[in-house]
């Protein structure tokens, strides 16, 4: 793993991820199957204390990475973790940026350029203005992208962020536009400034892999929906399975339960039958769910080891 303050190191950045990453959708009223369930969760996690209780449960079950948005609430979680280094030893954040709704609503209100102006970082304003101003004038998007990354990262100072993700809505927007250079700009800045591994979240895995290759990003870290029923796997489940078997990338599976549409055991056994999946993101709202998911995953790992067929976790497919 990358150290908190260390500079980029190819070896550290390529260290394998933990098998289970804890997602944060449940804390923010996001549920792909039910508005009612989403609202219930939003109410339940209104207080930071309720969120921290679940994060503590995850930590105590051995799940020590929070794959999170850059929501203001996550900044508060980061403050708690920063304040108790012993309690949260080894705890990592994998920030996913940007928090898209914040921008979308700002665009509705102020237009695209107006919205950009509202999200410039507070600190280093002069530097930001130089970078941003020059970028605007030259139509050079690099300064602008790095500026927005820095604004999103402001809440994570002093905590470990060994991986920084670009959210799917932006990845896939750029992907459709054919704006491949932006991926390379993101990757370069995340590596050089944060000593972190850049990750890309997508709903269009097979297509994205082609573009990342074109952008010169080798063995990229990619997170996508990967589940037995093919929910939100654009390009088709077979194309995903081919990519897992044949392409060189580090796969992180999300939506493995398809928001509860697939029973946990069935969902995870299927995941463990796929080659080349390094890590799984899951969400849970209570200790029981966390522990049962962890237990199921350990069971699948054990079975994989004993049958000598464990390709999950054996590192990137080659």
């Amino acid at each position, binding site marked *: 793993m990358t150290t908190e303050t260390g500079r980029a190191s190819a070896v550290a950045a390529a260290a394998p991820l933990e098998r289970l990453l804890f997602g944060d959708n449940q804390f923010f009223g996001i549920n792909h199957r039910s*508005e009612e369930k*989403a609202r219930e969760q939003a109410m339940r996690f209104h207080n930071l204390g309720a969120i921290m209780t679940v994060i503590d449960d995850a930590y105590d079950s051995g799940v020590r990475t929070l794959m999170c948005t850059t929501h203001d609430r996550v900044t508060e979680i980061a403050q708690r973790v920063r304040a108790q280094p012993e309690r949260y030893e080894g705890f990592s954040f994998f920030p996913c940026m940007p928090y898209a709704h914040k921008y979308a609503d700002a665009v*509705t*209100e102020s237009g695209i350029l107006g919205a950009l102006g509202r999200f410039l970082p507070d600190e280093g304003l002069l530097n930001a203005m130089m970078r941003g101003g020059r970028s605007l004038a030259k139509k050079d998007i690099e300064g602008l992208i790095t500026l927005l990354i820095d604004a999103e990262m402001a809440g994570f100072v002093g905590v470990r962020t060994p991986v920084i993700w670009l959210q799917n809505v932006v990845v896939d927007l750029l992907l459709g536009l*054919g704006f491949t250079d932006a991926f390379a700009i993101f990757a370069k800045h995340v590596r050089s400034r944060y000593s972190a591994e850049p990750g890309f979240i997508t709903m269009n895995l097979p297509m994205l892999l082609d573009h990342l290759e074109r952008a010169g990003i080798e063995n990229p870290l990619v997170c996508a929906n990967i589940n037995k029923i093919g*929910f939100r796997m654009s390009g088709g489940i077979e194309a995903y399975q081919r990519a897992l078997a044949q392409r060189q990338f580090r796969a992180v599976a999300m939506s493995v339960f398809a928001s509860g549409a697939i029973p946990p055991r069935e969902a995870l056994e299927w995941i463990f039958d796929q080659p080349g999946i390094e890590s799984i993101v899951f969400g849970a709202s209570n200790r029981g769910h966390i522990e049962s998911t962890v237990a199921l995953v350990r069971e699948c790992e054990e079975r994989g080891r004993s049958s000598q067929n464990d390709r999950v976790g054996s590192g990137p497919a080659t």
Partner: protein
Amino acid sequence: MIRVGVVGLGKMGLSHLSMIRAHPDVTVDAVVDSAGYILGVLSKYTGLKTFTDFEKMLESVELDAVVIATPTRFHAAMVRTALNGGLHVFCEKPLTLTAAESTELARLASARGLVTQVGYHNRFVSTFLEVKRLLDVDSIGRVTHVQAESYGPVVLKARGSTWRSKRTEGGGCLYDYAAHPIDLATWFVGDVIGVSGTVLNSIFSEDTEDEVYSTLYFADGVSGQLSVNWSDESFRKMTTRITVSGTQGKIIADRQEVQVYLRSTAPEIAGYQRGWNNRSTTELTDEVWFYLRGEEYSAQLDHFVRRAHDPTLPATNDFASAASTDRVIELLTLDAAAGPAVSFASSGSEAVTPARRRSFLGRRS
């Protein structure tokens, strides 16, 4: 291959551009926007051919179709020019600012045999498609009432500097938000024949309304309630919910799920039982070739592309259908301006008709 030009690169235009450029049967041969900066970036990094002038673009590039996502006040003229140039047209909603113009454009397109579509993407949401299917087989008997709601956190303070905050340019909660539940309600239970009790109130906005409430009247005694508020922070993002009541049951649907209650006397529907049923988007949604922000956005563009290839395919959301939604928007505006139909006189409890008139923003002065 369908050769497409994308006009207007705001929030909707950029996302349409991204999705349609990824479509295997489409080439995007031109993009048009008035903002030179965005064009410059796209031209530099994506190789797209860019124009700042719509008509110049039409003169210099040969196209089969255009996607128009400019502010609403520009729609009518651009759509007319495109149709006169023999192009199929996908236009963002609402189609135009007057029902008469929308109807005229529908006629023009029909006379020229061109494919048209308006971006009422909810008709491509799997759960709402399921509602339509259930209603088409009379699953809940005779429909008596529809409740159409949308809520979301767009305007949360008195601020706003774009066309979306100006009603005269097609901004505001009625055009931007309420158009969607209205369109869904008419899709499910038929054309609106009258409206009453309409309230268009400002909560924060200075130049437009932030909430829309009304009673809708449909044929055969079916009634509807419209309830829309885009200044509701309790919703994380826009949420549209439709409730349809019938003599044999009830259907409640949003983008995530369909809840269906069927009485013991309801007809047999495959896959459904008496009492409560629940179908979720994970089981109802078909895969799309490219996902950006919901399958429905991809699916509606795919529908347009397929119809451009084969105009004989049945249409969803053509101009004629969008014009009828524009007519309802017009009725709501008139009704709101008329104020309460019945009200108490200031001196006592005697009811008087009609009440004093109000501004279209519903501010009682």
